[in-house]
């Protein structure tokens, strides 16, 4: 027995000349998602009138397929379908068979007729099938709020019938929006921020700054797990681990204590930008949310951002902490982030961090540092993991 899935994408249908690029990437991503979940052999995929049609010629588990497809950005929804010839009787049989195992009181039939040569209009089909279901199954038609909707799509050579439509992850296919260097801390926010970038079609490389030996290796292991968790949306990410303790020492030993956090972040930005340019990433991404902590004021964000000319994306800017946590639970990063770890040993934390840093003050404080040499040193010591 073979299984067929129809996968719908919406936005990429609007992309004009680039559409084929998006479609190719989408099909590629669907295959990778299936492969990553152990689906073997992979299905035959083809584009059919703004849908991806996936035909599994070997028996395959629908659970596995549906789990895989729900992680693929770019899909609005998908469904396992019954494929029949463009024949009204055959469509009727498929419709009854589709609805038969489901429990419901009211229903609707919604037909889309992409093939205008088909002898019946969409409405004809709706009426005909509706009558058949009422007669055979003794159910009520309800067009405004049905318990269940049976979809019929009439294409050039076949028709597809399905009643169990599964919502997709939305967004755009990963790999169609360019590459981002995402700062990953081990906390709740940054993985969620990266998720939003992936959702909009970006690929992410992850960069993590650690204070080893002041902190133990646990934070690095945690970040690796977070990156792996996010990797199911993109499959081949890189994680860059930057030893940051020496730079923190330099800052702590040479600059006023209230400016420490802002200075750390400026160095993180410098290093992230340098790596981004080398690896052809076009933006940086952080998990900052406006006003969440003292370092996340507009003044401090501005002072930090001043060291880079790449766009700094902050997708969480509009989210409250509880919304971020809810999203983290949904995407499976919460359970990893929640585990305790030494973030940066508090010996590096100031007693009273500045809330509204001024650029000239910060730049003056940095005169005590050999910025270029510090960045060079840390850059040389970056360790990269291929996930």
């Amino acid at each position, binding site marked *: 027995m073979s299984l067929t899935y129809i996968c719908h994408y919406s936005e990429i249908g609007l992309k004009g000349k680039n559409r084929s690029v998006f479609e190719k990437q989408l099909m590629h991503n669907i295959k990778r998602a299936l492969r990553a979940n152990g689906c073997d052999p992979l299905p035959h995929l083809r584009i059919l009138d703004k849908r991806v049609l996936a035909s599994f010629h070997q028996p395959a588990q629908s659970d596995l397929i549906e789990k895989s497809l729900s992680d693929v950005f770019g899909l609005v929804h998908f469904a396992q379908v019954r494929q029949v010839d463009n024949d009204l009787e055959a469509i009727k049989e498929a419709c009854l068979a589709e609805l038969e195992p489901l429990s419901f009181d009211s229903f609707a039939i919604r037909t889309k007729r992409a093939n205008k040569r088909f002898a019946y209009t969409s409405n004809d089909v709706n009426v005909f099938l509706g009558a058949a279901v009422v007669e055979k199954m003794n159910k009520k038609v309800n067009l405004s709020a049905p318990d269940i909707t049976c979809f019929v799509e009439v294409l050039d050579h076949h028709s597809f019938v399905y009643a169990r439509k599964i919502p997709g992850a939305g967004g755009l296919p990963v790999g169609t929006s360019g590459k981002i260097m995402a700062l990953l801390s081990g906390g709740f926010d940054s993985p969620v921020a990266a998720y939003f970038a992936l959702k909009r079609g970006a690929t992410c490389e992850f960069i993590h700054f650690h204070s080893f030996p002041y902190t133990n290796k646990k934070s690095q292991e945690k970040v690796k797990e977070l990156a792996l968790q996010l990797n199911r949306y993109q499959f081949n990410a890189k994680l860059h681990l930057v030893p940051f303790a020496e730079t923190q020492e330099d800052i702590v*030993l040479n600059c006023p204590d209230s400016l420490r956090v802002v200075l750390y972040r400026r160095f993180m930005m410098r290093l992230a930008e340098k790596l981004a340019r080398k690896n052809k990433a076009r933006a940086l991404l952080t998990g900052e949310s406006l006003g969440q902590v003292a370092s996340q004021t507009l003044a401090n964000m501005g002072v930090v951002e001043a060291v880079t000319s790449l766009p700094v994306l902050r997708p969480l800017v509009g989210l409250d902490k509880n919304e971020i946590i809810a999203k983290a639970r949904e995407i499976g990063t919460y359970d990893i982030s929640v585990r305790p770890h030494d973030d940066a040993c508090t010996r590096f934390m100031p007693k009273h961090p500045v809330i509204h840093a001024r650029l000239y003050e910060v730049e003056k404080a940095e005169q005590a540092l050999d910025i270029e040499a510090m960045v060079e040193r840390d850059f040389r010591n970056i360790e990269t993991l291929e996930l």
Partner: protein
Amino acid sequence: MNEKIYLDNAATTPLDPRVRETMFEIYKSHWGNPSGVHRFSKTMAGLLEEAREQFAGFLGCKPGEIVFTGSATESNNTVLKGIARTLQYKGNHIIISRIEHPSVAKTAGFLQKNGFDVTTLKADRQGHIDLQELKSQIRKETILVSIIFANNEIGTVQPLKEIAKICHQSGVLFHTDAVQAFGKRKIKVKELGVDLLTATAHKIYGPVGSALLYCNSGINFEPLLHGGGQEDGKRASTENIAAISGFARAADIYEQERDEENARYEKWKKEIIRTLDGKIPDMLVNGDVQKGLHNIISLSFKGADSQLLMMQLDRMGFAVSSGSACSSGSVKPSGILQACGIPDSFIRGTLRISPGRFNKDEEIEKFVRILPDIVEKVRKLS
């Protein structure tokens, strides 16, 4: 920066080459489980008993009163938990002080959670306990008093003889953690009157992982480690002969060189305090400077973050430690300095400087020379 100057000998000492030689000889030529009957075992058992006799000589006790353990922490746990359990029928009250090492303080805390009553004696500005308080706190349920011989952060030495006398008048056992004092002070347990004493090798240029417990022959207790009945049933585990012999060799060296070495420490201590006293304002010298251990110098600099001082010194090649520990992400001020009533603004800027056998005059001079500038710089940043 290429120069590395180690001034953290109260934390752990480097291995003396002579100790290393003793251990290496054993590792090279001897093996065998000392509990066996064949000649390999007999050789090892011979080395073990030789070391035991040496320690009996140093401490003025019988060889059978020496129990070898794996660490001072183990010795202290053995005493507190073992005595508590064994003498529970007599009473459930234990007395310690606010200036104990965590291996005593935390173990007492554990016992407290398990139904024992623990009294913690206060300390004065120099870190001495109050003998009158001790006297008044002993009651008929008291089974053990454990007071540190010389404190590890400030070097203050307690009046052990007087403490022992007070304990024995009430029939209470007296244990002392002598980790810092052993070697540096001549210790005769019978003269001092202590019933139990902890000492370790890695503070006297011996190996890490070798320690002992002196236990007056009349005392029995439930062991911490159960097993093969080694060490007269007081500590099961195959004995680490090379480490034990190394420990004995290290103690033996101190018997020979104690006075000469202490004289050097005293000279350095005076030099450090005298020089810095005029140069660094708002500095406190902690502990009992006259009568305490001379190799532990505790200085507090008001308003200077000790973490920064240590980092800065490390960059200049100097290894010292601070009066606080950065554990699991939080810097906690030293409880010992708090017990002495040192203000928090000073405690946060505390350094413990502990010179050792292999330091040279020039190193101490260099340290004293650079420290004022470092303190000034760090104060500006803190």
